[in-house]
Every structure is written in structure tokens, then in C-alpha cells.
């Protein structure tokens, strides 16, 4: 410390010396500085381990399943009779259930979610938006089991009072309720896409005398289209993976049909039924659980990757 001696303030020397002395004891600090990043990396690695865990468990047991049931039979079979004396494991009835419920859900959530997004992004004043958006988020925060209860004890009886042919368990009611559950997701993501369209584009249309509706449909929506499509794809992925609403309200019928008045089982509901039914580990039924889960996992993963790909392309446009 060449310069500390000529500082006229003695106090200063004291502080400086103290810092110097403490420095010598800093081995612990040095250890921490090196150990902390390693520890934190291990935490971050847990999410990778989770992915590996999911893929490994699904894959290894699915392979066991395909040793008993040929892959062709699984993916093209229209009969699913896991509990019977001569069990058959065709996944198509479950796919039919999943596709049907997802289509119904998207028929509800797509238009309503998009219209809500248009209202929030193009029409609503700041004040109104600040009230409506959090309320919509409440809708997204309701547990799915509550929606399941709602579908089973309210929506189904309501539908049956209008349309008596509908059975007590059917795919229509959970499809609709799933759609309602997905509305906030589509509304919020589509709104994000629409608000990120530069104002200058809207002003260009409005200055020509276009109405808001015209500027929305001719300018804003085309510009935000990929973001909107991405939100729909994510909505579909959400519908495919949704479990409790369909499990409760659509029953466990494994018929290969597209009749919305009937009970239809989805992939997710099948997983609940089989795992809850205490299928003995090692049985074909038990392995079929993993084969169905693998199919579900691949479907949703592809949807999510597709959504990300679409919205990334969209970002490059501006």
C-alpha cells in the first residue's frame, strides 16, 4: 500500500488495513465462488434429468409393450378391449376420443378466444382492458377438476334438457367445457400477437377512412396471423393433454366412433382408468399405459414445437 501512508486521515488507514486483513481469510469465499456455479448447474440439470426421465420411462416400457402387441396392431387397431379374455389393444378408439374432444374444444375456444383478443387489443380502452384481463386469467387459474365437476353436474344436464338423445356421459359436454377453459390462453396469446403489430400499420388503414373492423381484418390479423395460429396450436396441445374434464364427464366407453352424444374415452382418460385400476406391473395392460402415454407425449411435443416454430418465424417479420 504505497499510498495509504500519506493519507492524512488515520481512520482511513484503519479501514484499509482491516479490509486487507480480512482478505487473507478469504479462502472460504474463494471456495464459495467456485462451488456455487457448480451447485447451480446441478439444479438447472434437474430439468434435463426430468426430460430424460420422462423419455426413458415411456420408451423402455413402450418397447416392452410392442414386444407383445405389434406396433401396426396398436396404431391401426379399431378395437380396444384391454380387460377381456382375448385383449385387443387398438389405439384408434382413444385417438378418436381425443380428436373429437379437441375439435369441439377448439370450435368453442378458437372463435371466442380470437374475438376476445380482438376486443382487448383493438377496441377496449386501457381501463376496460385492465379490468377484463385479470378476470379472464382467473378463468385460467381454476383447477381442471372444478371444470370436470361443472361439465358433469351442470353442462351435461343442461345439454340433455335441450337435446335428450345425449347420454349422461358424452364427449360433447367436456369438449365444450375444455374449450371454455382454453379461451383465456388463446385470447391472451393472440392479443399479444396483435398488440405487437406496429401502430403505424393500423394508422395507415384508419387514415384512409377504414373502420376499426376493416383495419383489424385487413391489416392487424394478417400481420399477426402466425402468432394467432401458434396460439391455436398451443390450445390444441392443451386440449389433447387435458385429463380430468374428459375423465369425469365422458366416461370410459372404448368404441371407435365420432358420435358426440356418446361416451368416448380419450388417451388421457385411459391412462387414469388403467393406472387407477391397479393393473399389476408387468401385465400387458400395464405396459399399454406407457404406449398410450408415449403417443400422447409425442403428439403434444410436436404441437408445442410446431407452435414455437410458427411464432419464431413470425418474429422475423418485423
Amino acid at each position, binding site marked *: 500500500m504505497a499510498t495509504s501512508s500519506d493519507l492524512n486521515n488515520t481512520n482511513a488507514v484503519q479501514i484499509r488495513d482491516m479490509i486487507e486483513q480480512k482478505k487473507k481469510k478469504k479462502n472460504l469465499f474463494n471456495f464459495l465462488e467456485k462451488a456455487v456455479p457448480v451447485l447451480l448447474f446441478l439444479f438447472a440439470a434437474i430439468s434435463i434429468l426430468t426430460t430424460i426421465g420422462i423419455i426413458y420411462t415411456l420408451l423402455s416400457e413402450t418397447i416392452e409393450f410392442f414386444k407383445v402387441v405389434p406396433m401396426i396392431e396398436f396404431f391401426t387397431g379399431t378395437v380396444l378391449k384391454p380387460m377381456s379374455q382375448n385383449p385387443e389393444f387398438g389405439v384408434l378408439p382413444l385417438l378418436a376420443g381425443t380428436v373429437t374432444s379437441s375439435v369441439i374444444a377448439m370450435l368453442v375456444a378458437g372463435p371466442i378466444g380470437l374475438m376476445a383478443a380482438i376486443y382487448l387489443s383493438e377496441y377496449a380502452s386501457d381501463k376496460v382492458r385492465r379490468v377484463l384481463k385479470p*378476470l379472464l386469467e382467473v378463468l385460467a387459474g381454476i383447477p381442471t377438476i372444478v371444470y370436470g365437476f361443472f361439465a358433469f*353436474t351442470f353442462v351435461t344436464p343442461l345439454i340433455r334438457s335441450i337435446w335428450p338423445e345425449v347420454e349422461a356421459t358424452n364427449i360433447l359436454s367436456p369438449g365444450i367445457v375444455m374449450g371454455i377453459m382454453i379461451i383465456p390462453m388463446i385470447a391472451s396469446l393472440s392479443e399479444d400477437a396483435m398488440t405487437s403489430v406496429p401502430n403505424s400499420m393500423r394508422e395507415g388503414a384508419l387514415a384512409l377512412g377504414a373502420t376499426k373492423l376493416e383495419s383489424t381484418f385487413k391489416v392487424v390479423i394478417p400481420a399477426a396471423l402466425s402468432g394467432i395460429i401458434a396460439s391455436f396450436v398451443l390450445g390444441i396441445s392443451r386440449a389433447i393433454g387435458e385429463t380430468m374434464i374428459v375423465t369425469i364427464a365422458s366416461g370410459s366407453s372404448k368404441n371407435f366412433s365420432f358420435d358426440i352424444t356418446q361416451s368416448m374415452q380419450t388417451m388421457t382418460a385411459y391412462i387414469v382408468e388403467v393406472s387407477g385400476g391397479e393393473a399389476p406391473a408387468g401385465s400387458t395392460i400395464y405396459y399399454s399405459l406407457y404406449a398410450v402415454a408415449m403417443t400422447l407425449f409425442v403428439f403434444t411435443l410436436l404441437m408445442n414445437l410446431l407452435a414455437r416454430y410458427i411464432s419464431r418465424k413470425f418474429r422475423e417479420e418485423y
Partner: protein
Amino acid sequence: MKYVDVTQVQKRMNGRILKNNSFKVLFLLATIFGLIVLGVLIAQVLTDGLSWINWDFISGKLSTDANRAGIMGAILGTFWVMVVVAPVTLIIGIGSAIYLELYAKKGRVQSFIQTNIANLAGVPSIVYGILGLTIFVRALDFGNIVLAGGLTLSLLVLPIVIVAAQEAIRSVPQHLSEASYGMGATKWQTIKNIILPAALPGILTGAILALSRAIGETAPLTVIGIPALLIPFPGGIFDKFTALPMQIYYWTLDSSLVEEYANLAAATIVVLLLLLFILNSTAIIIRNKFQQRY
């Protein structure tokens, strides 16, 4: 001559404006539609369930007899699940976020982990249930105890906590950490003393939202295997358990057999929603009260 005929434009103008206004109403209705459903849902749950809520129901044990059934076991189960999920997700979530935001070099490893987290967030919750069943319940042989369920739900909501913590850390202004480095602080000192305290409200808000997602989840628990009628109260994280959403599930399923079960389910929903409401309000209060001005 002019191509735009002013009289023609004026004639069509009223129609266009009318169309615009009617669509505006339609869009507003679409926005409100979800809220109306929300109102109906809550009204239905309250009419079915509210009159069933009393002290005996809250504090009682499960029973097949609808008039004697109580949900204290499910409340305690949910409580113990929170005891597992909250620390596990906070520690791993904050740790991962600090690593990704402050230590990881921008490059392949970092973007790989980041993509991985984004993909995990989109995996259906029931798939996590299968992971939990295979790893925690069977391979590690925990059985269907609170710890197994809690860890499964922790993995499920971990991406939410990580992303929220990353955003909170990113929003701490650079000039604060610069000031700390400028005083000779080490990286870990800066993170511990400056960045984490400033990011904490954001992190906590995200963690509470994740926690409320976890305690409302049903699908993973159904896969792990929760007994439908578990009489003894769980006393810790190593006990078998049931949870509020599981109880709602079983009672709803059986409501076609015993009509009163629908009321029990509704009453349990009221309790669950109340719990979620309290958690979310806490998150909002934290966000508003501790929001830093920089």
C-alpha cells in the same frame, strides 16, 4: 374525372359503421362470455356446496356416509403436499434461474436447457404422473405417500417457477449489479446481496402461482394412486394421503350413485377455491407491496 364517387362512399358509410359497431358488441360479448361462465360456475358450486360447509365438514374424517363425511384428511394432505412442493420448487427453481441468467455462457448448453424447460412446460400433467409413478412410487419404492406426490407435482410446476425467477432476475437493472461489482464485490456476493433481494418479490409471486397450480392438480395424483377412502389423517410427508382435488374427483364420479356426493364435491370445491384465492391474493399483495422503484 374522379374515380371515388363521394355520394357512393357516403351511402355505404353508414352501413360500414353499423357493421363495425355491431361487431364491436359481438367481440365484447365473446370477451364477457368466459366471465359469464365463470359466474355461473361459481354460483352453481356455491348453491350446491355452501350449505354443506360447517365445522364438522371441515374438521371431520372421510366417510361413505355423506352426512358424516369431513375433509380434514384432504386438507392436511394438501397442506403436506405444499410443505414438499414449496421448498423444492423454490430452491431448484431459483438455482436454475440464477444459473441460466447469470452463470451460463450464452451458447449451446444454455439454449439447450432453455428449450428443454419450454418443452417441459407443455408436457401434459398426466405424463408427469406416469413419471412419478415409475420413479418415486415404484423405482424408489416410496409408495403413494405425500413425498412421492409432492415431488411429482414439484417437477410439474418447476418450469413455471424457473421462468418466473428468470424474468424477475432479468428485470433487476444492470446498474445495480455494476455498482456492486464496482465496489469490489465478487459475483456470488453481488447475486446474494443485490440481485436476489431485488428479484425476490417477482420470484415469490411466480412461486406462489406455481404452488396454487400444484395444489389444484388432480391428474398426476390419480396416476400415482390415491386411495378413495383414506380415513387416518396424514401426519407428515411420509404418510399415505389424499388431497382436496382427489376428494372432489371421487365424490364427483360417485355422485351418480349417491346424490349427496355432488354436494360434498361442491363444498370441497368451495374450500379449494378459497385456498387458491388466498394464495393468489397473497401473490398480488407481494407484487404490489414490494415492487421496487429503480
